[in-house]
């Protein structure tokens, strides 16, 4: 009997559902995957045109959701240890115009995940991040990162994104925490 990876994806995103399906066969007790972002948060538009409420929904809420997910995971995994994976868009590394609140939240969540890795490492909880192309996570926001170099090898399929997540939840990967794995076919190659 398999214990599937628990995938938490706010906003009922189609990516989250597809990722959950792709991971369904994987037996991984003690593993939680959190998908950061949804269509509402990643709505493209200039910062100065936002209402304060929209800023809060796209920046604040996304960050608070990430915090809640990490805390829930910590509560669940605490006694025995486990593995947490944050899935977020690569757009946070180069930045993306007209996605300011969302990228703010994504980069905050990544720093939060690294802090969690530091605080929870001794308790046997690893926290890592997988970054994927924005268009895979939120298809409606695809245009916002059109300035990026095209991927050297091609755009990743969901199966390969899932495989990268599996790589981090695999119990054999004990020594990896606080890491960020970019799965985008070779578009963002940060030094």
């Amino acid at each position: 009997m398999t214990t599937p990876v628990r995938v938490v994806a706010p906003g009922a995103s189609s990516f989250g559902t597809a990722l959950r399906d792709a991971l369904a066969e994987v037996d991984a007790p003690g593993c939680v995957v959190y998908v950061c972002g949804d269509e509402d948060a990643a709505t493209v538009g200039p910062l100065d045109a936002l209402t304060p409420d929209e800023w809060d929904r796209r920046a604040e809420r996304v960050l608070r959701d990430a915090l809640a997910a990490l805390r829930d995971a910590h509560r669940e995994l605490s006694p025995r240890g486990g593995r947490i994976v944050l899935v977020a868009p690569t757009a946070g590394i180069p930045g993306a115009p007209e996605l300011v609140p969302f990228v703010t939240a994504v980069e905050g969540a990544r720093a939060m995940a690294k802090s969690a890795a530091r605080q929870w490492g001794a308790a046997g909880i690893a926290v890592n991040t997988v970054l994927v192309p924005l268009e895979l996570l939120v298809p409606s926001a695809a245009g916002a990162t059109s300035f990026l170099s095209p991927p050297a090898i091609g755009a990743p399929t969901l199966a390969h994104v899932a495989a990268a997540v599996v790589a981090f939840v695999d119990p054999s990967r004990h020594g990896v925490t606080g890491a960020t794995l970019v799965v985008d076919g070779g578009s963002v190659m940060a030094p």
Partner: protein
Amino acid sequence: MSAVDLSGRTVLVTGGGAGVGRGIALACGAAGAHVVVASRRENGVEVVDEIVTRRGAASWSQCDVTDRESVAATVAHAVARTGALHAVVHNATSNQSSVPHRLEDVSGELWEQHSSVSLRGAYHCAVAALAALRVSGGTLLVMTSPAGIEGSATLPLYATMKGALRGFAKSLAREWAPHGVTVNVVSPLAYSPAMENAVAEDPAMEERLARRVPLGRVGDPEIDVGRGVALLVSADAAFVTGQTLGIDGGHFMSL
């Protein structure tokens, strides 16, 4: 005498009443800028006095960065007083910034304290200042720290905010580039009231920290950080945008 020339420029510094913010304000004043010292408390008035005593130009604006109207009023003051606004340095952070905490125990209240000042504060500064910065071809500067890049074992919310501000700045740099406005990030290592408190409680900490800094010391807020910021808010840095500059004696090189 400062090598950087900010004469004719207006620079607004949030959290300008103490620590790194005060250092930035003093350095920009010494470089010839009119400095609008924005602070919640009246310690900002003393900074204004010091700039003026040194024959610089400055004015105080009471400013609560968590309050959109307050920030808008401060920007309006700057423009009304000098006719323009060339730079906004969003330096203010929560006064809880250096209080150690565990991520799993974070309360909604602590979250709000951090986020309202750092993130909503940055948002307020940006939207309030954009119009004036477009006219002047100016710049917005936010502050980060190694914690924002590599996480923190003791201050996870501080790290979250500082990481978030980098994402904010890079995205805004791309968005505002067509308007001729630059956006950058500074990562300072300098004495702040919080650090001074920490050192007072544990004097050995200062030496431990200094040993890990290649240049062998913690920075002075005005001479070290302020002057670097003065360069970034000057016309000389007009081709620099979306960048994170460490002004930290080489403490952290993994940008």
